Structure formats: structure tokens, C-alpha cells
């Protein structure tokens, strides 16, 4: 299969959905014209589909997301880009109060996607490196996905566009151009709500998502050299969460490490670890270990950011401790 970078897979997914359905449109800061967004994800779309379908908005997250709510209520399917995931908090009400509750409160459908370029490791500091997915997983009424590879980046985005609910799509900036992989051409959907075992193993389970899946796979290779066979589960969808795949894995390996780039404290990993601890209690031979960002604003300077973030080395270290437990 031909290979694409992670970012190219995202661009392809958007174009594919716009081609397929005239109700799909793109909006956000700087997404339009010849420019095509801070990361160039929407480059060329305005020329291809017209300015009306690729709309540059003023700097006004609360209201352009709110506007997407109204468009979606009328059956359009806006793909909203927030320039960095960090700025999603500026439009918070329009997501967690408005979009998230409308179906429950009176049956209105909000079939939008918010694309949030997230994650760090690339020396961008506290305001351009955030991973705010836990806020949205905790909020009733939203779906949240976080692809770890180019094929899922395309497949989950296409599924998100077609989903009748609001989906927050966290794309991992550090993977944009550093990760290439096979991506099916044409129609390709990845189901929302299904995790994937991306590396089978017998000795312990590493549960990860987004950019930490690559790190977990690298750690697994490293561990295999020591004879420790790690199974890697890529959650892919954080809400709904496919706990069954996690439980099935842990029931075989009896040991689990949960890892994400976001703050470990009260992060999505806490939910996963608490469920493993509760529902896989009888199978566990060791305590569930969590890795995540430190409880500090994401620092800029390389030694500090490296200390802040989980990586393959830290995952391997934790896995070794766990295997030796």
C-alpha cells in the first residue's frame, strides 16, 4: 500500500469527505485561501472546493465553535480546526455546555468534528503543546478520538465526520511529518469505539494512544531484547472507550502500564487504570502503573520538557519494574 505521512493522511481524509458530501465544510483561523492553516493541513482545499466551504474565521473560538453548533443542528457537518489544541479552552462553553448537551436535552444532532493539533516534545512551551483530552472525556455527550498512525488518522477522521455526534479529534503534532505509514486509498473508515492490539505480547500490556503508541512500540522492541514480550493496545478512541480489548489483554498478561502524554494526574489513564484495577482485579499480578506528563505546565527548555514527558525509555523502565514485580 502507498505510504503517507500522518499529516497527509489527515488532509486526505478531509478532502475525501468534502468530495463525498456537500454538507461537509471546514472552518477555523487561517484554514482558507492559499494558506491552508498553521500546519497546512487544509492547503489546497479552498482552491478545490471554494471559499464558502473553507472559511477563515476571525479570532473568536467561542463563537466560531458555537457557529459550528448551529450549522450542525441544521444538518451541515463542519470540520472545525482550532489552531492548537491549547486554544480549545477558549471555546470551551460551546463544546462542553452547548454541543455536548443538545441531543440529550432536546434531540438536536451536532455532527461536527473539532480537529485539535495537540501534544509536544517539539519545544513549543506551555501554550502550544497541550493534551486536554481528559476535560472532554469527563464531559457527558462528546466523543473523543486520538489516532496514533496515518491509517487511523484518516480512518478515524472520516468516521468522525460521518458520526451524528460531536467528536473531538486530537491529532498528534509530533507525528505530523515524522511518522509515515500505509494508508488505504479512497474510502477508509476506522470505527470509533474500537481499540486495536498493535503488537501482541504475553508478559505485560502497555495501553497507550496518540504519539505514545510509537513510544510504546519502541519500548516493546527494547524490552523484547531482554526477553520481555509486551502487548501494546492502542486505544484509538478515548470516548467511547473499548475497555473490552484492554481487559482481554490484561487477562492474559496480568500486568499493565497505561501511558499518555497528558498530565498523569486525573488524566484519561486514571480512568483506564481504575477500570483495570476494578474489573481485572482477579487477574492482576502487579499494580497497574501509570505514566503521563508531570503535574506542571508543559515546559519549553529541552531538559525540562524531556523530564516532563513520557517516552520509550520511561515506558521500558516502568515495564521492567513491572515485569520484575
Amino acid at each position, binding site marked *: 500500500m502507498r505510504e503517507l505521512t500522518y499529516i497527509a493522511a489527515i488532509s486526505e481524509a478531509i478532502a475525501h469527505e468534502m468530495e463525498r458530501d456537500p454538507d461537509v*465544510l471546514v472552518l477555523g483561523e487561517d484554514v482558507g485561501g492559499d494558506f491552508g492553516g498553521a500546519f497546512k493541513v487544509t492547503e489546497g482545499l479552498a482552491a478545490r472546493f471554494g471559499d464558502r466551504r473553507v472559511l477563515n474565521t476571525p479570532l473568536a473560538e*467561542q*463563537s466560531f465553535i458555537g*457557529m459550528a453548533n448551529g*450549522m450542525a*443542528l441544521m*444538518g451541515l457537518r463542519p470540520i472545525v480546526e482550532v489552531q492548537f489544541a491549547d486554544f480549545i479552552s477558549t471555546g470551551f462553553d460551546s463544546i462542553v455546555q452547548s454541543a455536548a448537551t443538545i*441531543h440529550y*436535552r432536546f434531540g438536536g444532532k451536532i455532527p461536527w468534528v473539532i480537529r485539535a493539533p495537540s501534544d509536544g516534545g517539539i519545544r513549543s512551551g506551555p501554550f502550544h503543546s497541550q493534551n486536554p483530552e481528559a476535560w472532554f472525556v469527563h464531559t457527558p455527550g462528546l466523543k473523543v478520538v486520538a489516532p496514533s498512525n496515518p491509517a487511523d488518522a484518516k480512518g478515524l477522521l472520516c468516521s468522525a465526520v460521518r458520526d*451524528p455526534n460531536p467528536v473531538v479529534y486530537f491529532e498528534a503534532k509530533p507525528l505530523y511529518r515524522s511518522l509515515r505509514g500505509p494508508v488505504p486509498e479512497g474510502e477508509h473508515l476506522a470505527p470509533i469505539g474500537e481499540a486495536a492490539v498493535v503488537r501482541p505480547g504475553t508478559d505485560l500490556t502497555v495501553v497507550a494512544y496518540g504519539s505514545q503508541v510509537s513510544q510504546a512500540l519502541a519500548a516493546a522492541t527494547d524490552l523484547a531484547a531482554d526477553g520481555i514480550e509486551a502487548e501494546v493496545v492502542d486505544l484509538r478512541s478515548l470516548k467511547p472507550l473499548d475497555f473490552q480489548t484492554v481487559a482481554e489483554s490484561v487477562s492474559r498478561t496480568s500486568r499493565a502500564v497505561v501511558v499518555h502524554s497528558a498530565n498523569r494526574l486525573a488524566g484519561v489513564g486514571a480512568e483506564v487504570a481504575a477500570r483495570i484495577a476494578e474489573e481485572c482485579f482477579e487477574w492482576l499480578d502487579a499494580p497497574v502503573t501509570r505514566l503521563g506528563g508531570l503535574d506542571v505546565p508543559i515546559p519549553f527548555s529541552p531538559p525540562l520538557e524531556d523530564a516532563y514527558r513520557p517516552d520509550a525509555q520511561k515506558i521500558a523502565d516502568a515495564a521492567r519494574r513491572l515485569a520484575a514485580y
Partner: protein
Amino acid sequence: MSDPLGSHIREALFSTPPRPEEPKAPATQPESGETPADLADELRIDLYRWMRLTRTFDNTMVAMWKQGRGLGGTFSGRGHEGISVPIGLALGPDDVIAPMHRDVGSYLVRGMTPARVFGNLLGKVTGPSGGRDANLHGMGDLSLGIIGYVSHIPQQIPISLGVAMSFHYRDEPRVALTVCGDGGTTAGAYHESLNMAALYSAPLVLVVENNQYAYSTPLDQQMATFAITERAAGYGLTARTEDGNDVEAMYRSVKAAVDQARSGGGPTVIEARTMRMLGHAIHDGAEYVPPELLEEWETRDPVEGQRRRLLAGGVCDPARLEDIDAWARTEIDAAVAEAEAAPFPHPDTVSDGVYA
């Protein structure tokens, strides 16, 4: 492209309970495009009829809550009927409205039955939110072109901007109308949305219900100048001030704004000056409002004002108005009975409907 509202709206609009004294209901919907410098007599009576229904609803609701027959809190729209009724009546059947918590009139006009509204207030399964949302929140019904209220002020504005932009995008001759209070004008999303509405020439009408208070906070503690209309005009959209207690003036103004929006002329902000006659919510005695202010505005009551005008102008005789008043009483009493008799939702359904 799909039309999530469909043409059911026209039907729904006229499917309210039969009104014996008002057989010519279509008179309430002047042909789109007609600018009513002189309003038809039947329309003028209709404005009264819907205001009376709204007022009777409000009186009854307030009495019930005082008697302990309510559930949770609620909000009176007394004194706002001169706004809430025309914003409903001036819209066409395929238009969409996103009202606030004092706009019961607009729900009724759009075809939501009083029994359903009471059902919502009482947490019954028959309310438009099915017991999920409280008081006058969440009373959306897209088949009637109504978007339920989001409490976070002024969320209704960006949502309505988006509805308007969907019409724009699809080249549909439809209009979105929404409402905020004087308090809403000081919030960030007000500014963002007005700027975008002007920028995109969105078919949007925003009525600012300037009722002089945001909860306990009078205008002069909200803004340095009361130039709501002038500030709105600064975005590059049409803006004007109206007497919110003059229902005919309001109808004309809203209708003109709707026509302008429909014909591609862009958004309008109408500042409707009025007074909140009861407290912020049912539990609020509003001791912070000077009694003289209320007395003054009591003399400008929009419902009684329209009644006097109809009689003075010889538009109809007193008997017809008394029939209307009696009809409203009957309608509302029946609605209360129906809502009180309706069941609560079953607890097992609590998780139904979070996702579509």
C-alpha cells in the same frame, strides 16, 4: 441536501388546539416579503390573542409555583409579551428561532402547546426535553423550528449565527432569529458573533431584550453608556431601538429585519426596551427594583396596551376580546391539567439519548 426542518413546520404552526373564535389563523402569517406598514386588523388581533395566551400562561405558572405546585424554579416573562409574541409571528414557517427564558410567547406562536411547556416545567415525559432539562431550558423542537435554550449566556447567539450560516451556505431563503438580554450584551460571545454576523452578512436577527436589569444588576452597573444600538451598528450591521412594550411597532420592526435578512440584506440587531415586571426568577422578590419604576411600567403593560388600542381604533368590539381572554383561560387550564396528569420519565431511561 437534506432539510432537517422539512415543511412540517407550516402544518405544526397551525396544529395548535382549535381556536373557536379565531378560525382565520392563516392571517397570522402575512405573505413573506410584505412589509406591514399598516398591519391587517386580523393580525393586530392575533398579536393580542397570543399575548393574552402568553400572559395567562405566565399568571398561571407564577400562581402554581407560589402554591408549591411547581418543580424547581422558573422565570416569569411578564411584561415581555410585546417582544416574545412578534418574534414568533414575524417569522416564516421555515425560519428558526432560538428563544431565551422569558420568551414563552414565541414557543406558543411557533406551535409548542402550553401543555408541553407545562410538561417541561414539571419534569414530565411530555415536555419537549422529556424531563431532562429544567424550567424553560431545553425546550427545543426542531420540527417547529425551535432551538432549546442553553443557559450559558449568550450561547443562543453563536448557535443562531450558525443556523443562519447554514441557510446562507445552502442558499435557502430562511432566517434565524435569536434573543439576548441587556446582560447578554456584555458577554464576549455577543461581540464575537455580531462581528461575524456582519462580516458574513448572515441572515440573522437578534433582538436584545433590554429590560434594564441583569438579575439584580441595573444597567448602570453593567455598562458605562447605554448605547446598545449604536455599539451594534459599529459592527456594520443594521441596528435600531424599539419600544418593546409596543407589540405592533415590534412586529413591524422584526418583520422588516426578517425580510431584509431573507432577501440577502444581512443581519439586524433590534434593541427592544422594556422592563422585567417580576423578579429574575420565581424565588426573587426583586426588592432591588424601585417600586416607582415598576408602577410606571405597569401603565405601559403591552397586553393591556394592545387591548386599549384595538378598542380605541374600533378594530374589534369588546366581546371579541373577552372571548379571546376566556379562550386563553380555557386553553391554559386544560394545559395545566394535562401536564399535571402526565407521567414522570422512567428512571431506567436516564441514559437514553446522550448520543444520537
